[in-house]
């Protein structure tokens, strides 16, 4: 008549929560919710090996050239160029309605650009979300769109769908190849959950996960498709300072896997401390592109992006405050 | 020689057109209920066809058990009384249905209300079969209008019964009245507001529950009127009439663009014509006329689910 707590079944929860912490000066209440933890290094290394993403090429892998998107009389995007290199993190910022999400949808095949084109490793991007994913571009959604009544593990396994080949006949027969494929997928799911720090929730339904963990699960699910490019749509929306920090660590770790990342964010501080390069979209046009420091100091950004007296906002930007008030709290804490 | 062959063909064609229009306006009346309910709460009220059936039995019961024979056989008394009685019975059932079956599921996933609607449909049909005396077989229904017909002298003659004309006229008048009601009155505006956004409507001081009840009541009453007219035209009613005509009406509502009153009428007329002409001219004859309607239904749902009238003029955004 033994009673072993299920959560402790071979999970390293206790270990990671203590030694992975990198935050400083956080309130105890917030800490109780989420500890900031970078993915364990050995997991990252194993995953990088499994995923085989980095090719060492110097050519840009994702290129958008002259992408223009017209909805009736409304021009949502005009002539947007972007080139993403391997292992790069690019940030995309801009005020509401600047066309960030539209641009994302062009990159992921949900929209077909009115003119211009998107290429992945020199090939035209397919115009169908499923094929885009197959080609190696994965995304997360601004409003979390997990499969709410599937467990965390099952969510990640769905992400493996595109890399598995077992059809109905093979599923019916449950032969050795099927089992091997399932076992591999399960193993990968386990690693991915460990990577994003959700091992303890692996058998929990996605809908029961805390908000921040749902976002992490969405990232794990996207990574399960072995993407060479990961597009994150507002990955820290609604997160507190600790969760935001954890997400930053996670995205760095994802870059270390060899995945190139494009992030849409409102939180400029987050973008400036995360990205190698930042693109500013205003009214569908690419206003500025450059390193975080360049962008941060650019008066045009200050003026056009914020539409406020330049001096004030400039000061805010310099301190890394959030543009639209979403993250002013953590701006001060630094 | 040629002309002699042509005119009977023409008269057959015109007769079928007339039949189609009569059936079509009947279907249009039922379709109004579908389209309004769907417009307001996006529910396919499967049981709406049964409301139509119940209305017909309500009218018949009034004629058979309540009215003195002298009145029941005098058309200018019997017709309005039966129509009102059918409308009231149907309306009560529709409102009760909304209150007890659908309202508790207002926020449930979409499968639940649809299955509930199926259940209500089966239950209503069976309740009528079990509890209405003699309903296990088709029951005779008196003609409630002037006997006789207009005969248009083409070929063998195109016969349109007066009661058929009544049916067409009443449908058009009621549909027109309904449209005016929705467009012009305060309650109508409340309905349109509720269909656009229930929460916003609530903020504007509209009680969505009342609006929804009203929608069911109006749809039910129209179906009840349709039921009595159906009995009066075909001279017999049975408990299966609701399911079949309900599906036709649903098809009509979709065809016209669901949520669109004028569309429902046009859709109804098209369906009526498809059935009449399909039964006459398509392979298989009348045995397959139902099949053609279902084929139309599938084609419309697959290729033009927004209906002929598209997005414009919809009660619901």
């Amino acid at each position, binding site marked *: 008549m*033994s009673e072993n707590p*299920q*959560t402790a079944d071979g999970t390293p929860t206790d270990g990671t929560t203590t030694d992975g912490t990198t935050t400083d000066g956080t309130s105890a209440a917030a800490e109780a*919710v989420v500890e900031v933890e970078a993915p364990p290094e050995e997991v990252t290394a194993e995953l990088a090996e499994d995923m085989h993403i980095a090719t060492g090429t110097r050519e840009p892998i994702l290129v958008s050239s002259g992408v223009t998107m017209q909805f009736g009389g409304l021009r949502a995007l005009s002539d947007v160029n972007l080139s993403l290199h391997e292992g790069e993190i690019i940030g995309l910022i801009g005020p509401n309605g600047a066309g960030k999400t539209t641009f994302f949808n062009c990159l992921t095949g949900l929209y077909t650009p009115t003119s211009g084109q998107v290429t992945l490793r020199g090939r035209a991007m397919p115009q*169908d979300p*499923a*094929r885009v*994913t197959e080609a190696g571009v994965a*995304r997360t*959604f601004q409003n*979390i*769109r*997990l*499969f*709410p*009544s*599937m467990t965390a593990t*099952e969510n990640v396994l*769905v*992400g493996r769908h*595109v890399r598995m080949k*077992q059809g*109905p006949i093979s*599923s019916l027969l449950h032969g050795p190849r099927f089992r091997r494929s399932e076992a591999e*997928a399960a193993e990968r799911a386990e690693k991915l959950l460990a990577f994003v720090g959700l091992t303890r929730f692996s*058998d*929990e*339904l996605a*809908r*029961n996960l805390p908000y921040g963990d*749902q976002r992490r699960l969405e990232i794990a*699910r996207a990574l399960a*498709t072995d993407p060479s490019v990961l597009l994150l749509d507002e990955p820290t929306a609604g997160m507190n300072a600790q969760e935001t920090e954890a997400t930053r660590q996670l995205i760095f770790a994802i870059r270390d896997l060899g995945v190139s990342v494009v992030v849409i964010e409102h939180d400029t501080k987050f973008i400036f401390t995360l990205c190698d390069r930042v693109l500013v979209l205003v009214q569908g046009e690419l206003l500025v592109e450059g390193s975080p420091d360049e962008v941060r100091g650019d008066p045009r950004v200050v003026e056009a992006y914020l539409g406020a007296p330049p001096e004030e906002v400039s000061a805010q930007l310099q301190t890394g405050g959030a543009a639209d008030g979403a993250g002013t709290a953590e701006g001060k804490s630094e | 020689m040629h002309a002699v062959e042509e005119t009977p063909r023409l008269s057959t064609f015109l007769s079928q057109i007339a039949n189609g229009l009569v059936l079509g306006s009947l279907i249009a009346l039922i379709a109004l209920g579908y389209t309004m309910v769907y417009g307001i709460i996006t529910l396919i009220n499967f049981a709406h066809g049964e409301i139509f059936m119940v209305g017909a039995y309500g009218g018949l019961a009034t004629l058979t058990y309540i009215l003195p024979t002298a009145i029941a056989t005098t058309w200018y008394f019997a017709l309005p009384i039966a129509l009102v009685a059918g409308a009231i019975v149907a309306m009560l059932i529709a409102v009760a249905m909304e209150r007890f*079956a659908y309202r*508790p599921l207002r926020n*449930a*996933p979409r*499968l*639940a209300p649809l299955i*509930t609607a*199926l*259940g*209500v*449909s*089966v*239950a209503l*049909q*069976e309740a009528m079969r079990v509890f209405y005396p003699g309903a296990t077989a088709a029951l005779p229904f008196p003609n409630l209008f002037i006997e006789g017909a207009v005969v248009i002298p083409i070929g063998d003659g195109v016969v349109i019964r007066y009661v058929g004309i009544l049916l067409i006229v009443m449908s058009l008048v009621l549909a027109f009245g309904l449209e005016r009601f929705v467009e012009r009155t305060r309650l109508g505006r409340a309905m349109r507001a509720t269909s656009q956004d229930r929460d916003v409507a609530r903020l504007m001081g509209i009680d969505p529950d009342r609006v929804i009840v009203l929608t069911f009541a109006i749809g039910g009453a129209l179906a009840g009127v349709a039921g009595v007219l159906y009995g009066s035209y075909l001279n017999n009613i049975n408990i299966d009439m609701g399911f079949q005509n309900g599906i036709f009406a*649903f098809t009509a509502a*979709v065809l016209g663009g669901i949520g669109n009153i004028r569309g429902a009428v046009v859709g109804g007329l098209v369906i009526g014509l498809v059935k009449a002409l399909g039964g006459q001219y398509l392979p298989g004859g009348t*045995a*397959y006329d*139902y099949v053609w309607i*279902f084929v139309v*239904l*599938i084609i419309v*749902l*697959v*290729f033009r*689910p927004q209906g002929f009238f598209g997005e414009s003029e919809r009660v619901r955004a």
Partner: protein
Amino acid sequence: MTTTATPETPATPAARPRHTGRFARLLDAAAPRSTVLMIVGGVLTLVGAYLPWVTFVLNEGPYPEKATLNFFVDPFGVTGFRLHLVILGLAAIVVAALRRIPARHRIVRGLGIGATVVALINGLWITVEGGGLGAITASEGTIAFGSIVALVGGLVTVLGASAGGLERKPVWTWTLPWWVEWILLVVLFVIVLLLVAAVLTSGGQGGVVNPYAGVVFLSLLAALGGAFAALNASGLLTWVSAVSERHRTFSVIVLLIVALLLPLTSAGTEYWMTVASNIGVYAATAIGLNIVVGLAGLLDLGYVAFLGIGAFVAANLSGAAASQIGIHLPFVLVMIISSVVAGMFGAIVGSPTLRVRGDYLAIVTLAFGEIFVRSAQNNIGGLTGGANAIPNIPAVGVGDFKFSDSVVIGSLRLPSGVLYYFLIVLLVAAVMLVFAHLKNSRLGRAWIAIREDEDAASAMGIRTGPIKILAFLIGAMLAGLAGAFFAHKTAVVAYDSFRFLESVTLLAAVILGGMGTIPGAVLGASILFVLPEKLREFSDYRLLLFGLALVLIMRFRPQGIVPDRHRKAELTDPDVEDVAKEGPGPLPTRVEP
């Protein structure tokens, strides 16, 4: 494995639970004396069982005899519903008295509900058939308050249990030596077999033969339901299912063998074999439908057409005189062809899913179903016999040996129809296997993902179109398979068997049992096809009750009897956002037993 994951903390004994809802005040008042109430309720149930129930002697026969005053002639021979009440009452007293039993209140509540329903059913039946309340109270010098006392007893039990505060279901994690668990499983499965046989045969065949069949059957069902609820509340069922999960292959084999042994029980007559075979046909079809509706989330309202297509194809290839095609193929081949043809039609019916979603898709499938019925009714291409049906389909057989014959092995004589029963058991088992294997594969996950969020699924690289059509195709193939069997077993195939109402019934079977689960579909099919068999005296009201039941299920238990962990959320009110924002979600928790 089930883990209890309710967000609220369990009520501590010190702080009595505050009740909410309609009966809050009553429950609060009863709370301090809950144990006493439970015991009193149990005692009343016992007393009620031993009191006379009717004031007059019903007609002859085993059941009514026991239901009259004659009962006291033989006070220890308690049978029928009285036995059920005695057992439920005693169990309630014992459990209520033993404070150390975990989830005591919840268990007792299950028992109490069972007793209440048993008392209610019999009391109502006697009242209705016996000509009024006099039949269960006092009239003509005799008194018979048994049903009322038992009913009060049951209600008091439920009141006491509810007032005491319902605990969370405990989770047991015992592990026994493997051979002990094996023996345990075998014993349990045999018990299940005997119960199934008892339920199936209880009250006899019904109809004119035995007017009490319905009420005897319902009593047994209610009593078993109460016992089942109590066992479930105790957490033992969950534990047993965990044990059988540990020995999955073994369990499956034993279950299959046990199912094949049904002809050796009291249900081993030709009549019950036929009933069981029919249940099997609908269970197999319901499992196929479960792929489409339960897994992929696509509502199909014309599904029975595939059963019909399978049946008509088989009928035409059977060598029946009325068939259009004058060939007679071996049964196995016929099954394959029927299945493939039905599958092709499934793909056709499913193809609108590429463009149509939700309610509209349901209507499209309904339209296809109606087109099938109409065409079959009109004897399309001479293939369906129209109103004359296709009669005299020969039985499956090899040479002179027919499947419809009875089987004699040594001194054991099995009833005729037993071979068909064996065949359908194997068929259902195969269909279950297909369902289970597909559900736990890349394909099954893709279906569920599509059901949950189609856009997100396609963003995960799932080509939703072909995968949805595949759901229709496979579901239809399974139905076609069942159809081929159906044609040979019933020997007549008529369009009448495949009407809209049958589609709704199948859908109801899937929903009633629990969407997305195998036991659910089988259970649902069994209930929906046994009930009409048993309740012949209510046959007029059958469909009426069926319609009302659909409404009530959707209202009060939309997740069905055996809910799928996944599906539970789907049909109850999903509010992912709220759950998400409430902060840390509940971890898998357990309650100390």
